[in-house]
């Protein structure tokens, strides 16, 4: 995965590139917006990491023009401005995710991988989290090499949870994805699909993978 880091602090940028390289990202560094433009003109990137405090312009403003130009690589905004409303401003400007400094490298890498799993940009045909895999085109799930026999709804649910691994997916969002607008369903329908999927994963040896967050939704955690 090729990644462009746009950050004016050389120390932070090189450290970040070095740390992410050990996690499978090939990073280029642009110390400003002008350099970023040059890099984007000469190569194609899967992901962008953008720091907002840049010497040659406002990162958020640049992000808006970047989005207006139909460039689709996901952007993760990195900033010191973590408090209150700034996060919202970043997401409004077209950032796909947002992390405030300082951050854990592991969490950043996890978020970047999650961005890559989003449908759209450059979709990988197989979603993989540890021993859990899902073939997007074939709608087939596997755990530790063992095939999981999934119904259509269970497959849709597994895809959704895999694309959002590490984050809680709300019950409302699952309802929206699993059922069309005019379909009627009982309030515990989602619960039933989740428990069937969980049982199948557990039977294949994956315990403690699919969690329930009571009152909120469900969460797929990378098996340890």
């Amino acid at each position, binding site marked *: 995965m090729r990644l462009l880091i746009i950050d004016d602090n050389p120390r932070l940028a090189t450290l970040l590139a070095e740390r992410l390289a050990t996690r499978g990202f090939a990073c280029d560094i642009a110390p400003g917006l002008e350099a970023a433009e040059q890099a984007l003109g000469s190569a194609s990137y899967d992901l962008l990491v953008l720091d907002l405090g840049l010497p040659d312009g406002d990162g958020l403003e640049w992000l808006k023009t970047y989005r207006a130009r139909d460039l689709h690589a996901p952007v993760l905004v990195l900033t010191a401005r973590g408090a209150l409303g700034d996060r919202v401003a970043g997401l409004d400007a077209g950032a796909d995710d947002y992390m405030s400094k300082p951050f854990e490298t592991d969490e950043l890498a996890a978020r970047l991988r999650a961005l890559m799993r989003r449908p759209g940009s450059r979709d990988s045909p197989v979603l993989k989290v540890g021993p859990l895999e899902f073939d997007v085109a074939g709608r087939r799930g596997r755990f530790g090499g063992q095939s999981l026999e999934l119904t259509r709804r269970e497959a849709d649910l597994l895809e959704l949870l895999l694309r959002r691994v590490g984050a809680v997916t709300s019950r409302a969002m699952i309802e929206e994805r699993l059922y069309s607008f005019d379909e009627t369903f009982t309030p515990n329908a989602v619960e039933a699909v989740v428990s069937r999927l969980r049982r199948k994963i557990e039977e294949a040896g994956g315990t403690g993978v699919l969690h329930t967050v009571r009152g909120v939704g469900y*969460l797929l955690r990378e098996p340890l």
Partner: protein
Amino acid sequence: MTRRGSIAWTLILGFVLTGLAAAALLLFVVAFDFDHVFDSHYRQKGLTGLAYEIGDHVIVPLVVLLVPMITAVPWVIRRALAPLTLAARRINAANHPDRGIRVDLAGLPKEAVVFVTAVNDLLGRLDEAAVRQEAFAADVAHELKTPLAILGMTLDRDDGPLADEIRAELGAMNRLVDQLLLLAQLDADSVSHAPREAVPLADVALEVCSRLAPLALAAGKDLALEILDRPVVAGRREAVAAALRNLVENAQRFVPEGQAVVILVGPGPQLRVRDEGPGLTREQLDVLQRRHERADRASAGGAGLGMAIVSRIMEAHGGALETDPKLRELRLVFKGPMSAHRVPNSRSPASPSPGTM
């Protein structure tokens, strides 16, 4: 009221002395005039005639004039000075914690306006100083974040026990910087009187719960949400979320592994965080809330500022942070015009129940 240094008392004394001196002078003039001008006419009547004349034409009119004057003057003076008391009352009333407060000049006399204007100028200068100080605090916090990030990543290269220790300290320092930044931001908001928005508490709770649940699970603890009500309050959504996040993070530190922290929304305009910990008494909460007001704020440590910040956020929303040691709950209780309103559920399934799963 002390008489020394009182303007009213000086005025009364001045008037009385002036009155007495004028009366004495009048008596003297009358007696002198009588001798020289009406000499022949009154000599026939003798001294009693003179006394009679003075009594009749000087003393009586003077008494008639002086009595109402002496009784009226203090009243007139108090009345004239009353606006000063009013000005003082207004200045006293302006001790609200929010900034941007000025004493109202309407209805004050010219003499009081001078002082009240001076007080207003002083308030303005204090505001400016506070704004500068907040901007400075925010700048410092921002500037600290990049080196902290660099430090964290540098530590990532090392897996020794020393690195772990430093990482823990770094984590505490990060939290402290975040909290200082949040405090500075809250102060800046109260100065600028940032517009309030409708904040649906259930949505905020859902967002906070989703955000913190992965971390809770990683630490072997549970986080759950129960929506009993869907109140909407007026305020700043991000600030309310920060307050709830602080309470949940705090509860997670104390709850034993395998146990759950539960966020409850409602009934009424409140967010509740319940854990299996020992609970906080009113007095313990008071101490925690006042932490940042104490001089030793630097020694309060990363976690110590949390409750103080929560209580500041609630104050800014006209609400309060309350504790129920029996239920082991901390509550964010809001008061506001929007509390009574309800938002419709965004997308409900076939069942009308929006409650818990």
